[in-house]
């Protein structure tokens, strides 16, 4: 059973609130209350495709978390979590000397500690790791996914091509973000599930997005992480509120940023689009024929384009038109 098969009821809050009210967003909770919830392990996060339970006693982690998960609500009384995680401090001397943060999944520490000050990026990478390793009931494309209503664009690109920057900018211009990192393709329905997490912006992209829109809520800048300087963009409420709403793939896009480049859009052959998507999937080789059929359905139904850009707004407006005009037809139920 996965979290998608569970109705996330919130009886304790529902009883205290009117029928139409929502649970409070994390940004509206007193920090002390949130810290208490973390320390008792009663923080459950609904990412859309997955439910994650988190425990932590690290105050700085809780403070940073509140910034970048501000639009989320706590999934109180969630009857099921796909992953049980903990972000805790270093052991022994490392609790005091160059203190560390450790990420645990089911009580096991899958990788080396990070500096304690980088506990939030550590948690983010840890959840990504859990998801990439264990969520094999879906085909996990290594791609961003955004939607206009229920029409989704899948954006795949190698590291450094500007995918996260474009994803962030598209959300800030009104697209619904499903994911920056995981295209969660359901092989049964052919739909994309949100796996909505903060967007990890690196190096120059941090200032680009900070300057791009006043609505951008960025968490702290973590300098000198294993992936450079990193800051997380908080998902906007519109995306958060729709995280239980899958979307239909309508467009495949392979973006690349090049300084000073004029916008160029080139149609890609179906077999090339298939190869680029399938062979960059996290679990294509593991899932086999099911993944082959699911990706082939997408490559068959969706027009595919390589897009080179240097100006975000110009690229986004082209994408908006391409997505709305895509003739993609569903090939599965």
């Amino acid at each position, binding site marked *: 059973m996965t979290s998608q098969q569970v109705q996330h009821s919130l009886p304790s809050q529902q009883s205290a609130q009117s029928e139409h009210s929502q649970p409070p967003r994390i940004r509206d909770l007193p920090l002390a209350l949130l810290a208490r919830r973390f320390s008792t392990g009663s923080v459950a996060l609904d990412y859309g495709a997955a439910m994650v339970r988190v425990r932590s006693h690290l105050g700085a982690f809780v403070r940073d978390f509140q910034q970048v998960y501000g639009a989320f609500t706590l999934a109180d009384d969630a009857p099921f979590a796909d992953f049980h995680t903990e972000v805790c401090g270093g052991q022994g001397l490392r609790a005091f000397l160059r203190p560390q943060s450790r990420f645990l999944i089911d009580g096991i520490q899958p990788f080396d500690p990070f500096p304690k000050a980088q506990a939030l990026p550590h948690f983010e990478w840890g959840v990504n790791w859990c998801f990439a390793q264990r969520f094999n009931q879906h085909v996990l494309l290594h791609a961003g996914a955004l939607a206009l209503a229920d029409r989704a664009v899948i954006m795949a690109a190698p590291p450094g091509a500007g995918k996260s920057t474009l994803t962030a900018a598209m959300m800030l211009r009104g697209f619904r973000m499903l994911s920056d990192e995981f295209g969660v393709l359901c092989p049964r329905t052919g739909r994309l599930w949100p796996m909505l997490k903060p967007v990890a912006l690196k190096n120059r992209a941090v200032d680009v997005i900070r300057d791009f829109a006043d609505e951008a809520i960025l968490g702290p800048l973590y300098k000198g992480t294993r992936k450079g300087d990193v800051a997380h963009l908080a998902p906007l409420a519109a995306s958060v509120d729709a995280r239980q709403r899958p979307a239909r793939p309508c467009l495949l896009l392979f973006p690349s940023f090049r300084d000073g480049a004029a916008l160029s859009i080139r149609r890609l*052959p*179906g*077999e*090339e*689009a*298939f*190869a680029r998507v*399938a*062979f960059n999937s996290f679990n*294509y*080789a593991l899932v*086999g*024929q099911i993944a*082959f*059929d699911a990706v*082939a*359905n997408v*490559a*068959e139904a969706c027009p595919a384009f390589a897009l080179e850009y240097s100006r975000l707004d110009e690229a986004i407006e082209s994408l908006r038109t391409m997505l709305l005009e895509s003739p993609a037809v569903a*090939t*599965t*139920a």
Partner: protein
Amino acid sequence: MVDPDRSPRSPRLRYRQLGDGAAVFDTASWQTHILTPAAAVIFEVLAESGSGEAIATSRALELLQEELELDPGTPEIQQVLRSLQEMGMLGG
């Protein structure tokens, strides 16, 4: 729902036409083969000729020359033939 396996070929192979090209999943090896438009045409011709069975390499070369007027000696065609061999479409 689109029928994912629309032309006569070995049940071992799942074939999907994608535009002019295609992708093939080999259920025996779990390997995926990407076929360019030219390779997809060759695949179709040989699959139809073999009716789901492997066909002799000599017969395949004849078909390429006679039906498709292709030179089997070019590196591109040799590459296609190697892929087809891996998929079990060529024998003997």
